[in-house]
């Protein structure tokens, strides 16, 4: 006998037609699955009533796996094969991972993404994440009594293409149909914004186990728009644990620890951190494998002091996102707190001080993202009443563009553009008779290709031979709702086209995104000069080529003095094009332009004459 749910008026589903959709918060520390039942979003608990699934997977030599709490218990015994915080490794190379030296894992620098050697073989972060997603899928199917039509999976707003793709791959591997990837702060805003139906500018401060995300959102008449995002993909509650862990090592003057003791003290650190949220004093005590006992007193004030720099580290990206959105703290109507780490009183206080208002925290900060994702999944699966549709807008973190002559970047889609987005721009050929064009897609804010990140290259062939500048090549950039990029190029007269879906095999670390952004501000002046110089150099090359070609063809139209005059200008421009003064190049170009003015006029007259000779007016 099936168990029924209450529907909205007039929307009882036909038998066997219920469309089960879930929202999944695939977290660094914990993962959750939620759905909308009886009109209310709720977390689906496991058999023991736990809402959270610790994001921990243990691989055994016999090929079996344990997940969640079971794996957490086994972790101290088998740290090498028990993978925690796998989200930090998604779409990342070995170099991007913080604290490799303290990590018990045997990393293998796989192609594109780091991999981990376990007792059950080498596992990629995608496979590990798939085990977690599979567990949540089974839990959801058993709770809902049927197969899922799909899931909305959340990712940090800062995840780049490689990390999003890795998340999608993991979901596919777990047998989930991904309706959409949704950024975590946006999901949190759905949970708060729609429930409370409040309009205005909101900020989402999400300090999770392993990531910090800050987003500025505008909520108006049912439309969510992300105005700006920033964050730190390598900062979270785990770092507070790690600080406490280091403090304990230092205080107790411990020798290098075994892997088991490492895990034990890490778990202890987390426990003490959580205890100090509601208590003024705690004792850090643990018995090591060697029998040695650690017993240290710690006050809330001391803990706040030793982690103050971590809290401060969240405030810089916060201010930056506001600047990006052109807003001040006074414009922010409310601050939504997300992530278990925001329970710490000193985090709450720092946020309250910065925004001069108490943050919103009436929903459980651990659950709010999954609840919002469930509401989005419910809407996407078509379970929502007509007229209640809402659109969700997200942004891209770094500008996307093309390489043009001279190694310059032509930006096609600007940073913080809302998703999904498609933008087309026309480009042309540089040389006479050019029949192919190489298209180099780059990401970044700098003016020079060499300072940006290369995403993809492809070639467009079959451009009809025309004079330079006559061909029209339309290049279209398309970023879908999941933040994945596709680029296509088409020559408009011949219809020749080529395209590429950008699936970078290797992600940008958050540090690199931050550095690329900072560099673009610091080097703004240099970049401007470099761009002006490169532009003039490219123009000089183009000019020299066409004058040389004309001289070769039509030298007969010039007398000796004119020929010598043009030659002199050509030589002067050729020399000046080597220097780095864009004004000097510009004036040499102008000079050559003037010197060839009457030559160009004569050539044109002649070609008109040639075209008309021997033809009657009627024949033209």
């Amino acid at each position, binding site marked *: 006998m099936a168990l029924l*749910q209450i529907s909205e008026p007039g*929307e*009882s589903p036909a*038998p*066997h037609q219920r469309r089960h959709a879930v929202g999944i918060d695939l977290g660094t520390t914990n993962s959750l699955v939620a759905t909308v*039942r*009886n009109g*209310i979003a709720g977390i*689906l608990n496991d058999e023991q009533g736990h809402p959270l699934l610790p994001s921990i997977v243990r691989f055994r030599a016999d090929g079996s796996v344990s997940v969640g709490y079971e794996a957490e218990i086994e972790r101290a015994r088998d740290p090498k094969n028990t993978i925690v915080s796998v989200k930090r490794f998604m779409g990342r190379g070995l170099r991007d991972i913080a604290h490799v030296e303290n990590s018990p894992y045997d990393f293998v620098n796989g192609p594109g993404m780091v991999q981990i050697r376990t007792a059950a073989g080498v596992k990629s972060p995608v496979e590990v994440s798939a085990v977690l997603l599979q567990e949540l899928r089974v839990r959801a199917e058993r709770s809902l009594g049927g197969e899922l039509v799909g899931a909305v999976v959340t990712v940090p707003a800062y995840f780049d293409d490689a990390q999003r793709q890795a998340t999608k791959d993991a979901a596919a591997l777990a047998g989930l149909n991904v309706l959409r990837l949704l950024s975590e702060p946006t999901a949190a805003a759905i949970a708060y914004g729609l429930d409370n139906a409040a309009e205005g500018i909101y900020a989402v401060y999400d300090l999770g186990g392993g990531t910090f995300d800050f987003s500025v959102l505008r909520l108006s008449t049912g439309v969510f728009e992300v105005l700006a995002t920033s964050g730190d993909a390598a900062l979270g509650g785990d770092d507070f644990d790690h600080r406490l862990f280091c403090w304990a090592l230092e205080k107790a003057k411990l020798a290098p620890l075994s892997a088991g003791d490492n895990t034990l003290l890490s778990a202890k650190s987390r426990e003490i951190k959580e205890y100090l949220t509601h208590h003024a004093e705690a004792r850090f005590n643990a018995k090591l494998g060697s029998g040695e006992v650690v017993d240290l007193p710690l006050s809330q004030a001391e803990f706040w002091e030793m982690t103050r720099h971590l809290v401060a580290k969240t405030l810089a990206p916060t201010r930056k996102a506001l600047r990006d959105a052109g807003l001040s703290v006074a414009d922010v109507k409310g601050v939504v707190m997300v992530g278990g780490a925001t329970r710490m009183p000193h985090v709450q206080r720092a946020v309250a001080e910065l925004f001069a208002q108490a943050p919103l925290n009436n929903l459980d900060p651990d659950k709010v993202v999954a609840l919002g994702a469930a509401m989005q999944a419910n809407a996407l699966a078509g379970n929502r009443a007509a007229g209640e549709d809402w659109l969700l807008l997200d942004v891209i973190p770094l500008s996307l563009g093309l390489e043009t002559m001279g190694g310059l970047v032509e930006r096609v889609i600007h940073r913080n553009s809302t998703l999904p987005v498609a933008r087309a721009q026309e480009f042309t050929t540089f040389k006479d008779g050019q029949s192919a064009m190489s298209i180099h897609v780059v990401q970044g804010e700098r003016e020079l290709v060499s300072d940006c990140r290369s995403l993809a290259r492809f070639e467009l062939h079959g451009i009809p031979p025309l004079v330079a500048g006559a061909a029209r090549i339309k290049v279209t950039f398309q970023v879908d709702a999941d933040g994945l990029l596709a680029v296509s190029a088409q020559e408009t007269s011949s219809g020749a086209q080529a395209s590429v879906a950008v699936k970078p095999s290797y992600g940008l670390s958050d540090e690199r995104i931050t550095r690329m952004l900072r560099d673009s501000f610091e080097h703004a002046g240099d970049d401007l000069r470099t761009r002006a110089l490169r532009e003039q150099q490219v123009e000089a090359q183009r000019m020299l080529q066409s004058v040389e070609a004309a001289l070769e063809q039509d030298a007969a139209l010039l007398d000796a003095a004119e020929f010598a005059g043009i030659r002199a200008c050509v030589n002067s421009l050729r020399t000046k094009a080597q220097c780095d003064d864009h004004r000097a190049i510009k004036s040499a170009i102008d000079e050559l332009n003037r010197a060839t003015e009457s030559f160009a006029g004569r050539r044109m007259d002649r070609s008109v004459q040639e075209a008309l000779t021997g033809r009657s007016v009627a024949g033209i």
Partner: protein
Amino acid sequence: MPITLTERAAAHVSSFLAKRGKGVGLRLGVRTTGCSGLAYKLEFADAVNPEDHTFDSHGVKVLVDPKSLPYIDGTELDFAREGLSEGFKFKNPNVKDACGCGESFNI
């Protein structure tokens, strides 16, 4: 015969209505569809229609349209948990046979 809710079902309906923030009660009914002919309707009600039969059970207003009433007369609605799954169950004395899944039935 009245339509009733078990105490447990009534408590869940009340809490769902409170969280939903609007609605006057619960609407029960049947539709002609499904593999065994009829299917249950279980919806929040935002308004009472003039022709509705209304019942009150443990503080929850239950609305049934006159066409549906003969098919579900005397039904008790229960809230049950089966493994991880939870939801409402119709205990309908009129049912002769139901499809295996219980989502549709005939009388």
